[in-house]
């Protein structure tokens, strides 16, 4: 039997519950499929991470001469390298095409370009799971009442860049945390991670950006800087960190990379006048729900926050979908159009997100991207709070507890690949700011389409999934990498 015949037989053998009813022809107007497909909800998230390297003995601050020129462009700041991103065709929206023959070649061009980026050497994600498991609990734990958001991918990139500019034990400790054997392997994998997750096609966005901000009075090893720029798609700048213009340029870069979503945090960022190098890493992510929520179904209800009940908006839907569970949690996945998915993980009554993060089973769940062992396809009545959560995490203590200690110690640090000009360089600041928000994306008439095509054959069991108490979330990239994880203690805090 031919493969295609086997395939057609296998489709014929699909679960009864999935087969749509074939009743009398429906007559509907103005509800084109193309319209529905684009009518999905919005999810936007982003993060920045920054590390500042400080020379212990003060470095060589240059003379400040940074007045603005007549055109308003700051002088004294030299863009050394600008990151050039891969070309990716814009996603062709079906609604813009009336003729399928016109659409198909454009769509195929988009698809082929996307696939080329995703098609990275086997094993390029090796080590990421171990890194994620080691760091997630460290940066999310705590019994506090604050929301917490952490982007493992952003920290991974920032650390990989840090490994490039260090040597000896300083580098070894970073490689160990990233579970990489040597710098060459890390470099190749980090590049693949970058490419495989890159997406900026007008509909979905996942852009990792890094930048290096050099001190123009310090001599740098050109080759190290070039290697970092080339392999990590970094932009490189040189200027006087004591000048307000240099800090302003950094803030503009951060706002640009994060579409202004982190403006509150960015406004507080100022370069240390003595810094030898500032390193910034951002992740800018946004996507649209593949199946949007009906805005008219959103209702205010109580969210049981640690500090007491608060009234918040809950998005509601009933869908036939996968429902996962573990010893002490239940979870669902919401898919984003061409851009991965968001997992919502609700601890069982009596357990907190912090309790869950101590369990190996939960960390396994957060790192696996395939089917979970406890999964049931069923009707889920979900109630998901709209949320806008952000947090600022000082990474220094956490990194040291994870074994990355030497780069914080001027007596032990080894930044020799970066510069011979000054010794006693150490990492003076390392923080990550992140924000994640979700909503229905304001599209109307969604409930109509959500349930209309459901057909008959609901499973016998139905479950309620009500996220009305502190929960965990994870945004996983299209390639199965955790981009963001977080704890929501209050959805609108």
């Amino acid at each position, binding site marked *: 039997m*031919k*493969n*295609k*015949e*086997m*395939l*057609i*037989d*296998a*489709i*014929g*053998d*699909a*679960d*009864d*519950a*999935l*087969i*749509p*009813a*074939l009743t009398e*022809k*429906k*007559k*509907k*107007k*103005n*509800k*084109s*499929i*193309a319209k*529905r*497909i684009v009518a999905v909800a919005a999810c936007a998230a982003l993060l920045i991470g920054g590390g500042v390297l400080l020379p212990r003995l003060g470095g060589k601050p240059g003379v400040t001469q940074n007045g603005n020129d007549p055109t308003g462009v700051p002088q004294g700041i030299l863009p050394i390298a600008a990151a050039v991103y891969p070309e990716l065709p814009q996603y062709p929206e*079906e609604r813009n*095409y*009336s*003729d*399928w023959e016109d*659409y*198909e070649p454009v*769509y195929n061009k988009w*698809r082929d370009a996307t*696939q080329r980026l995703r098609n990275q050497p086997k094993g390029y994600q090796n080590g990421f799971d171990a890194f994620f498991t080691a760091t997630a609990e460290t940066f999310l734990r705590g019994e506090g009442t604050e929301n917490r958001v952490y982007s493992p991918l952003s920290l991974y990139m920032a650390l990989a860049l840090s490994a490039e500019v260090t040597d000896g034990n300083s580098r070894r400790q970073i490689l160990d945390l990233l579970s990489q054997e040597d710098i060459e392997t890390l470099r190749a994998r980090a590049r693949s991670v970058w490419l495989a997750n890159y997406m900026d096609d007008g509909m979905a966005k996942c852009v990792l950006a890094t930048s290096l901000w050099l001190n123009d009075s310090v001599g740098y090893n050109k080759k190290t800087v070039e290697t970092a720029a080339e392999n990590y798609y970094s932009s490189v700048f040189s200027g006087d960190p004591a000048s307000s213009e240099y800090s302003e340029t950094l803030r503009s870069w951060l706002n640009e990379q994060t579409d202004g979503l982190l403006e509150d945090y960015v406004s507080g960022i100022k370069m240390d006048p003595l810094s030898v190098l500032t390193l910034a890493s951002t992740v800018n992510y946004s996507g649209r729900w*593949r*199946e949007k929520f009906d805005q008219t179904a959103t209702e205010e209800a109580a969210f049981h926050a640690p500090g007491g009940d608060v009234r918040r908006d809950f998005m509601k839907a009933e*869908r*036939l*979908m*996968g429902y996962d569970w573990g010893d002490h949690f239940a979870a669902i996945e919401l*898919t984003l159009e061409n851009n991965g998915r968001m997992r919502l993980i609700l601890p069982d009554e009596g357990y907190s997100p912090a309790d869950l993060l101590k369990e190996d089973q939960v960390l396994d769940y957060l790192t696996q991207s395939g*089917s979970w062992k406890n999964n049931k*396809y069923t009707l889920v009545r979900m109630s998901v709070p709209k949320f806008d959560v952000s947090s600022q995490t000082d990474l220094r203590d956490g990194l040291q507890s994870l074994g990355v200690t030497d780069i914080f110690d001027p007596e032990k640090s080894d930044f020799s690949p970066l510069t011979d000009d000054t010794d006693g360089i150490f990492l003076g600041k390392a923080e990550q700011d992140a924000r994640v928000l979700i909503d229905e994306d304001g599209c109307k008439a969604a409930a109509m*389409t*959500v349930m209309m*095509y*459901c*057909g*008959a*054959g609901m499973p016998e069991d139905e479950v309620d999934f009500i996220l009305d108490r502190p929960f965990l979330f994870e945004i996983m990239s299209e390639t199965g990498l955790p981009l963001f994880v977080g704890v929501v203690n209050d959805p609108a805090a």
Partner: protein
Amino acid sequence: MEDGRIIELYWQRNETAIEESGRKYGAYCGAIARNILHSPEDTEECVSDTWLRAWNAMPPERPSRLAVFFGKITRNLAIDRYRKNKTRQLGGQYPVCLDELGECVGEAAPIGDGLELRELINAFLRELPEKNREIFLLRYWYFLPVEEIAERLGASQGSVKMTLLRARNKLKDFLEKEGVSV
């Protein structure tokens, strides 16, 4: 007559079951067979055979969705018949659908175990958004022509074709990812 009552008749070995099945689901099964076989005589025989198969299957079977249960039998019977009579160039939607799905698997190497493939297809279908799944199955389970799917859903033919194209591409990627040689 309600489905539960029809099933009871089969269990009681009451031949009225066949009459009632034909009355309620004859047109439904006929549409499936006709899409595949494109021949009134073959279609009629297929539908009659469907009740016979059902008679042999119930008991012990007690289908949760009787329509799909009958439809599945008709579909299998019609495909078998098509494969046996291939030389007669029957036409209809089946060969077109077969070619369309051929893009997803190729014929370079056998794709292996049918049982495993069935599970993969179920997993794939569950991942598809509801609407896309419906369109995919109206096409490849019921073998409906694109025009009819569009008409049923109030959509344009172009958007149905686009949805099918995207679903097939997704299926191809999915099978590749799951290690099925393509």
